[in-house]
């Protein structure tokens, strides 16, 4: 607990809003060249987008154990941690979208 989102968390992360489809809000992928990519479903509301983004940032920044491929409830505990982080921090991310939208 206690982790807080900083704008610099997004500095080295490429965020892509794309069509993903039913059942998934986003995913995080670290490429072979060690670049961090977050993909977010484009049809989500701004709030939901910010929460999903915060959730994925948690995985990238704090969730050192989660290497591998995570689907379903495979990583239940770290998913819950990421959700807590998202709930506590999405309001810090939301303004960034409003700025970008202008």
């Amino acid at each position: 607990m206690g982790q807080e989102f900083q704008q610099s968390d997004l500095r080295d992360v490429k965020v892509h809003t794309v069509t993903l489809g039913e059942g998934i809000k986003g995913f995080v992928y670290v490429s072979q060249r060690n670049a961090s990519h977050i993909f977010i479903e484009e049809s989500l509301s701004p709030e939901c987008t910010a929460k999903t983004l915060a959730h994925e940032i948690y995985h990238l920044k704090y969730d050192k154990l989660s290497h591998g491929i995570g689907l379903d409830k495979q990583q239940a505990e770290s998913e819950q941690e990421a959700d807590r982080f998202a709930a506590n921090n999405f309001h810090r991310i939301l303004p960034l979208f409003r700025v970008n939208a202008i």
Partner: protein
Amino acid sequence: MSSVIGDRIRDLRDRRGFKQQELADKIGTSRQVLSNWERGYTPVDTDGVLKLAKIFEVSTEYILHGREDNTISPAKQIALALEDDDELLAFFNELSKREDLMLLFKQVKPLKRDVIKRIIKYIKIVEDEEANE
């Protein structure tokens, strides 16, 4: 009336992208019988459980009781969704060898075949672009 076994069958069928008729043909039964299993109108017979387990590559235990540890691994699930696309499958097989692989999904329900395909396509685009930088 709903049935947890029926829900699991429909869930597995959705994940593999089969229509009811397609799955019924593989089992060797009619679409109506399969539909009745999925909706819990009639119980699945022993032969049906065995065939479903074989087709979906899960244990009979999973079909009957839904124990998570008997489900197919995420990597296997993705590979199955890509089985009709040689290029993407070859790409994913290489990718899944990476020891530092980090690929995590924020999902609200099991992913369908076309969604999994789209995800791997996006990853391939990213890798192709970075290779050309």
